[in-house]
């Protein structure tokens, strides 16, 4: 069963094609990594899947439902973390959690999540006064509050230190074992290697690779995944120059 199915997704901004005829599936219980340089179309793809941006062509289903027509049922079971998560100026951690939990029928205990992510002692603090890493962890907590079957994590661990990243990874591994499907974007290749079952590399809105990390390495003839990633995403002319 697929958690997400994307068929021939195209998104244009004026004459600029942000996502070009993209098709892929995210299998249930798997971690899917969407990679590419800034501006390659990752966020546009995610927004079109979620329905917050209107696609120009294509079809999308989430958990075998239409995310626009059946949004209530879909978003009851989907968590998300936006790249720049937004929150009210004067909101405190606990209030943001409580409000997020209130929109779902069967949310998880945010207290437990805050504890698991090591920020339970920050409950009474203003969100804006958290450190970058604490805030990032809070936003992952918010994504998990609905007790989702699928989460979207946009730039998962940006701003986290090495220890915190490992902690987040291990929590995600655990959730994955329980059947959670994850679509993530990240700029950290070690993270992709550690977490993703399948990856898709975008370049200027087009798919340039789809498969596993190992396949990316063998197909590109590179020993390290980071080199393979760069090989796929670098401009053609820079290949020629080398």
């Amino acid at each position, binding site marked *: 069963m697929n958690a997400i199915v994307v068929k021939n997704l195209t998104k244009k901004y004026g004459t600029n094609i942000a996502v070009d005829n993209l098709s892929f599936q995210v299998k249930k219980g798997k971690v899917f990594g969407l990679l590419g340089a800034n501006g390659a179309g990752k966020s546009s793809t995610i927004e079109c899947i*979620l*329905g*917050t941006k209107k696609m120009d062509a294509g079809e999308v289903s989430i958990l075998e439902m239409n995310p626009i027509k059946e*949004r*209530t*049922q879909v*978003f*009851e079971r*989907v968590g*998300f973390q*936006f790249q*720049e*998560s*937004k*929150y*009210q*100026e*004067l*909101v405190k951690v606990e*209030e943001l959690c*409580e*409000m*997020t939990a*209130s*929109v*779902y*029928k069967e949310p998880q205990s945010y207290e437990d999540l805050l504890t698991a992510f090591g920020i339970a002692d920050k409950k009474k603090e203003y969100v804006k006064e958290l450190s970058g890493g604490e805030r990032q962890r809070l936003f992952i907590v918010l994504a998990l509050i*609905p007790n989702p079957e699928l989460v979207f994590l946009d730039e998962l661990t940006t701003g986290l230190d090495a220890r915190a990243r490992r902690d987040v990874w291990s929590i995600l591994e655990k959730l994955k074992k329980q059947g959670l499907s994850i679509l993530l974007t990240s700029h950290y290749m070690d993270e992709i290697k550690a977490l993703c079952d399948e990856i898709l590399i975008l370049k200027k809105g087009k798919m340039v690779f789809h498969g596993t990390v190992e396949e990316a390495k063998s197909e590109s003839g590179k020993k390290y995944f980071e080199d393979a990633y760069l090989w796929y995403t670098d401009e053609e002319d820079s290949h020629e120059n080398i």
Partner: protein
Amino acid sequence: MKTFRILLKNELKMSLRGMDMLIFAVIMPIIVLIILGVVFGQKPAFEGAEYSFLDQSFGALCSIAICAGGVMGLPLVISDYRSRQILKRYQVTPIKPSLVLMVEVVMYVIYAVISLFSLFFVATCFFGFKMRGSFGLFLLGYLLVMISMFSIGMMVGGIAKNSKIAGVIASALYFPMLVFSGATLPYEVMPVSMQKIVNVLPLTQGIKILKNATLGLPTDNVTGAVIFMLLIGVICSIIAVKFFRWE
């Protein structure tokens, strides 16, 4: 319903933390009431009038909180939530983002009602205020003024490009209405030529309705004002709904 209650509770908490609505919608009307009460006391509104100056001003004072919430509070919070993409966040949850707008509206209704009760209490207990008309009619007028002022706020918040522009428009509407519509500076003390000019302000008409109801004067005095307020409400609501930007 549970969602609505929790969102409202937390939005109220945040709003109280910000203090500005508490000051502009609840404390300020009381201060103006006390000043008018002390200065004019029980004096009749004009020579030979059956009602006091304060009786005449009560409706105007009640409108201060409506004006603060509707024309200042609502546009600022809506444009702020849009630019922070909070409305967008709610688009990917089971609830509709419009519920968040409802929460904000109800919050400003609460401020206005608190102001109404506190004004009524202080005016009655300390300054001999008497509601001369029917309470029902007054509340009906109050509701009408609220709907039309809030619809102005929804329109400004809904269509302003960003919070900066919303702030400028809100100030351009709020401060003139606060000072010149008779909400703080009594309409009756203005020269006639000035009264003619300020008649175009929606709140001036709203205050006429409230004043008329408080004093129990014949309702056909304010037919024009009622139509004016209804029109404002309908037009602004239509524009707000039609052109509302979620992001």
